[in-house]
């Protein structure tokens, strides 16, 4: 299983990357999640500018046979969507940790990052 150790993870199978300035995070779903879902055909995201609490749904990912909600790993405001997913949702399958990212979020409370799992902890959870 591909699990970069510079990312943080949630029990809902999202990954989180803190940007260099420490204000925003990039969020996507894990390799395990995309593999469980199968061919992803549609990623529906809540609008840029909307604010969500940790654990609230920020969108839905649809595979051919399955639908899954996407949950905020941390509280914050959506500041950017991955526009490429509009026409190439399969990027989530192919490159879940790079081109397949989903949203960028302006953090409300950086201490929530402490709630997230390390690659090692996440690996133990899904194994």
């Amino acid at each position: 299983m591909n699990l970069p150790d510079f990312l943080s993870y949630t029990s809902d199978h999202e990954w989180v990357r803190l940007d260099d300035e420490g204000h925003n995070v990039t969020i996507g779903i894990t390799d395990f999640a995309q593999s469980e879902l199968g061919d992803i055909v549609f990623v529906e995201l809540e609008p840029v500018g909307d604010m969500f609490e940790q654990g609230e749904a920020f969108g839905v990912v649809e595979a051919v046979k399955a639908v899954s909600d996407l949950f905020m790993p941390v509280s914050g405001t959506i500041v950017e969507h991955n526009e490429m997913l509009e026409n190439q949702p399969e990027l989530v399958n192919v490159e879940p940790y790079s081109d397949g990212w989903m949203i960028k979020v302006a953090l409300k409370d950086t201490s929530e990052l402490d709630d997230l799992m390390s690659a090692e902890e996440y690996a133990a959870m899904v194994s």
Partner: protein
Amino acid sequence: MLKKTQLYDRHLSLGAHMSAFAGFDMPVRYQGIRAEHMAVREAAGLFDVSHMGQIFVMGDEAGALVQHLVTNDVSKLKDGQALYTLMCNHDGGILDDLLVYRLRDYAYMLVVNAANTKEDLAWMQANNEREAMLHDTSEHIALLALQGPRSLDIMARLTDIPVHDIPPYHFVRPAPGAFFGCEKAIVARTGYTGEIGLEIYVEREAAGRLWDAIMQVRTPLGLLPAGLGARDTLRLEAGYCLYGNEIDQNTHPFEARLGWITKLNKGPFIGRDALHAIEQQPRDRLLCGLIMNGRGIPRRSCRVFDTAGKPLGHVTSGTHSPVLRKGIALAYIERRDGLTRPGAQVMVDVRGRAHPATVARPPLHKQPKVQ
């Protein structure tokens, strides 16, 4: 404890995603539903559908019993022919959909849904006043479906059986030992994908040999092993009913557009009187194909409305069509204002949002070009 087919280890070594289906641990997908689906539409796919049930009806009364149990006219079958039919209860509700293969005038094979096999057999026994012999042979028979435009070419490379000469809904029974060492086999031009293809019934022990032989020629011919996921998207594009979704004991054949396999004039059979009465009544609702106009993937139980927001019905099966790259569905729609006709505009509620859709006649992946 889930049952395993003879090919279980092969599925695992191919990296299949396995899932419980009708009491079996079955492959849902290997590479991915889309790739497997397109392989079947454009080249070929190989499915292990050994979970399906086989019930043999034998003896002098076999034909009369089958004719009494099912809605289609089995008396028209000759040796080596198959037909698609329904088995209904006395109220005309659908107990199962099945294929009937006539081996001899005293031997028929009924291929039923895995989840229904036990109930079907009990129903058949309860209505077996003629005392035909009934055998559930499901555990001893493996079933491989080789489907797609190249399926016959693939099989022709592997056997001397003239597979290209078998007409649709016909089958051949190779001589003992002449087909992958099988004592008994049935090679039938039947399927559930909307493509040409074969369904091959062999004794359980021979399934591995047959699977391996077909897989060996897969690369030059573009064949992929395909799971139940692709089987479902393929049948849904083709507009075929799935028992438990489109049809069940609370639906009747006419609203499911299965009147063509319901032969009210063939003579007495279980459910005929009720079905005759239903047939005389105007239909309240009809099973329709839907193609989403834009985004949104309809799923089972999604509600359907007219464009004014009045309820029309519900989705029985929905998915993303790999061919159309759009959401598609089968749905029961109230028969009013021409809304069950191809081209009619309706709305589907997908997770609280209304998405426009167009009523379409299956096969949904082959729509006539509109000028």
